[in-house]
Every structure is written in C-alpha cells, then in structure tokens.
C-alpha cells in the first residue's frame, strides 16, 4: 500500500477536462493551494468545481476562474470575487448556489452512501424549485441529493502515510466532509508523518477515504480580512 506521492503535479494525475472536483476550504482558509496551482499549470478545463467559495480574484479558485478552466461552480457563497461576478453576468460561467449547510451535508451523504435526505433549508425559496417537498412534524422540507466528485482535493494540517488526516482550527470546514466524497481523494498536508505517529483517537479523516497524499510546500495562507484588537 502506497498512498504517498511526490508533489501536487503527481497528485492531480488523471484529472481530465470536464471532470467534477470537490475543493475544500472556507474562503481562503484551508484551501489546497498546491493542487490549485498544479491545476492552473496543467491547463485542464471545463471543470465543475464544488466548493463553498470561489476564492478571490487572484487567489484560490479565482486562479482557475481567471484562466477560464471552470465551466460550472457549485457553491454557497461566491462574493469577494469580481472576476467571478463578471463571468457569471456575461454567461461565461454556470453557477449553482446551494445553502451552505445543505452543501456540506450533500457531500457527507455522498461519502456515506446516503443518496438523498430531507432538510428544511430553502423551502419556499428559489432553491426549492424542482425539488420534492414533504412535511415532517408540521414543517416542510426539501429532498436533497448526495454529491460526489471524480476527485476530492483537500488540505489538512497533519497527515500520515496511511492517509489519516488532522485539520487545524477552522481550516477543517469543508475539507472533512469532502474528503469522504471523492472517487479519488487527494490530500495535501503541511506535515506528513509515518503511520503510527498520529493519535488514532484524534484522526478527523480516517485513511480509508484518502487515495493520495503529499507534503505541501510554500504555503501563502493568505488572510481575507485581518482583524486585530
């Protein structure tokens, strides 16, 4: 068993035009910077990206948007990106907006073999269009389908050679649910250790979900809004 790959370029092998990717992170926090750079470099296009946000103009998924490599975004919030808004208003980009909790749960369901589930979010709004409505305990709910991806690309703090992952602070966010829902899941980690070095009670993502792992380099870790006391 060997899940360790050399770098992002090797990790993204097999990602082809038209594929669906899940990309972890919330805003610019916990995004797989190395893999995004490698995707930009690879020139792969017509991607459908499932990601809570779309990065900013010159960072995160914004880098892929700028080069028109993304055909469709499935997200909950895409503000903070003027290029995104421009492409969307010009019809250059398809966008499906999904309530944030529903998005996270759809990824989790995809990983856990639950093809559909009911949630209250979005009932009575445009999100409900075309969806089955059913009442539970007197409250209307929407039937939502699971999401899966050809590749899920996540970023963790620590990882081991078996693919076990630990996330740091709020950089967990969508990484943990998405890691379960890729046909192939790629993890880039700040610190890569041997199997057995992580406490088995503290693993956020068990290695069974991760097919490729590598030690990332040169993190910028850009902050969108530095607020200090």
């Amino acid at each position, binding site marked *: 068993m060997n899940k360790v790959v050399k770098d992002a370029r090797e990790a993204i092998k097999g990602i082809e035009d038209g594929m669906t990717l899940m990309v972890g992170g*919330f*805003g*610019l*926090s*916990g995004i797989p910077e190395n893999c995004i750079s490698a995707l930009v470099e690879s020139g792969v296009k017509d991607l459908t990206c499932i990601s*809570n946000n779309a990065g900013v103009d010159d960072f995160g998924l914004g880098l892929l948007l700028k080069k028109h490599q993304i055909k469709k975004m499935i*997200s*909950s*919030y*895409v*503000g*903070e990106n003027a290029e995104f*808004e421009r492409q*969307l*208003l010009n019809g250059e980009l398809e*966008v499906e*907006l999904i*309530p*944030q*909790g*529903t*998005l*996270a*749960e759809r*990824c*989790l369901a995809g990983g856990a073999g639950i093809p559909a589930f009911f*949630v*209250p*979010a*979005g*009932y*009575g*709004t*445009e*999100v409900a269009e075309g969806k089955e409505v059913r009442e539970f305990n007197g409250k209307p709910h929407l039937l939502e389908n699971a999401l899966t991806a050809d590749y899920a690309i996540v970023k963790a*703090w620590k990882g081991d050679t078996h693919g076990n992952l630990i*996330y*740091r*602070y*709020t*950089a*967990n*966010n*969508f*990484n*943990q*649910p998405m890691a379960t829902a890729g046909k192939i899941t790629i993890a880039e980690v700040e610190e890569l250790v041997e199997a057995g070095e992580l406490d088995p009670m503290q693993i*956020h993502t068990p290695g069974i979900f991760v097919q490729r792992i590598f030690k990332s380099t040169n993190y910028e*870790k*850009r*902050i*969108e*809004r*530095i*607020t*200090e*006391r």
Partner: protein
Amino acid sequence: MALSKEQIAQRIAQELEDGYYVNLGIGIPTLVANYVPEGIEVILQSENGMLGMGQFPEKGKADADLINAGKQTVTILPGGSFFDSAASFGMIRGGHVDLTVLGAFEVTDQGDIASWKIPGKMVKGMGGAMDLVASAKNIIVAMQHTSKDGQSKLLKECTLPLTGVKCVKKIVTDLAVIEITDEGFVLLERAPGVSVEEIKAATEGRLVVKGEVPEMAFS
C-alpha cells in the same frame, strides 16, 4: 431618535440568557457580542466550524486557520471546540443553537425574510443564511426600519428573493422592537423619542399596537 447600529446591537443583547449558544451574522449582529450583559455567559457559534468564538486576536497574532464565518481572524475561548462544516450545520439544523441574530433586506409581517440576493445587482450567494433561518427556534433580525431613500423594509410581501418563509420571530430596528405573531408586526418597544406614529409611517406591513408602547431602556 433612531438608534445607532451599536444601540440596535445593545438592545438585542438584552435578549441573551445565561448559557445560550448564539450564532451572530455579519454586520450589526456581530456587534451584539460587545454588549453581553454582566453575569451572563453566552457561547458564540461560527458556522464555519467553531464554538466559543472569542474576540479579534492581538496585533500580530492573526492566524489564517482561525477565522469566523465573515472571514475575519478571531480567537477561541476556553471550552470552545472546532469541527467541520457538516457538523456545524448539524448543530444549527438540529435546533441546538438557542438564538440566531442576522441582518435582512426585507421582512414581512408573516415572518418571511429576504436577505441574500438583489437580482441583477448582487450574486454573492446565500451562504448559511437559508440553513439558519429554516432551522433556528429563535431568530432575531437586526436591520434598519427603512432604506436610505425612506422605503419601508417591514413589508406585507417581500419584493426580493426569499431566504426563508414564516421564520422570523422578532425584529430590532433603529426605530422599534417588534414581535411577529399571527396578527402581524406587534410593536413591543419604541426607540427613545420615536413616536408610534413615526413607526406606523415607516412600516408597510400590518403593524399591531396594543395599549401603551414603552420606550426601550438602556442601562
């Protein structure tokens, strides 16, 4: 006189109870954290995956891995915890958050809310707002009573795309504290020096006035 944003937050803070888990939205709601009454402990949930959110970090201590749902750098308090986005919205959807405070463009006298989209102008997405309004047992909307050009934002029907239906229970505006019941907008309190007539004039939806309406009290 109409309340300042800080005073709206201050009035909302009076609704807090000891031990409450609270989710505060972006804007005025965030300011509520500055006015937690003494002797009361509330725990702030940030829907990107944190309980026990603390204040902004000291200068030089900002950490890209520790942000709130508004993408601001923050800190965590003792007793807090981190978790993933699915777990976070599990808490919200499951009704474990005691109070949600959020902003809105428009609210109706049936509790409908529009807060996420202005067609043709703004396509940012709903983020967690739809999950929050559909799930919370207890929602307070913090907003201005009227738009900059004087149009009422407390309406019979929303003109903008909805975030949720029949979910808002209470509104605190710069002019009034209002409860939403089957009867409509029930006026509970007035901003200091603001008359019932002024509030009526600023409210397009059905406003219900029962007896003497007290002024808000600030300690």
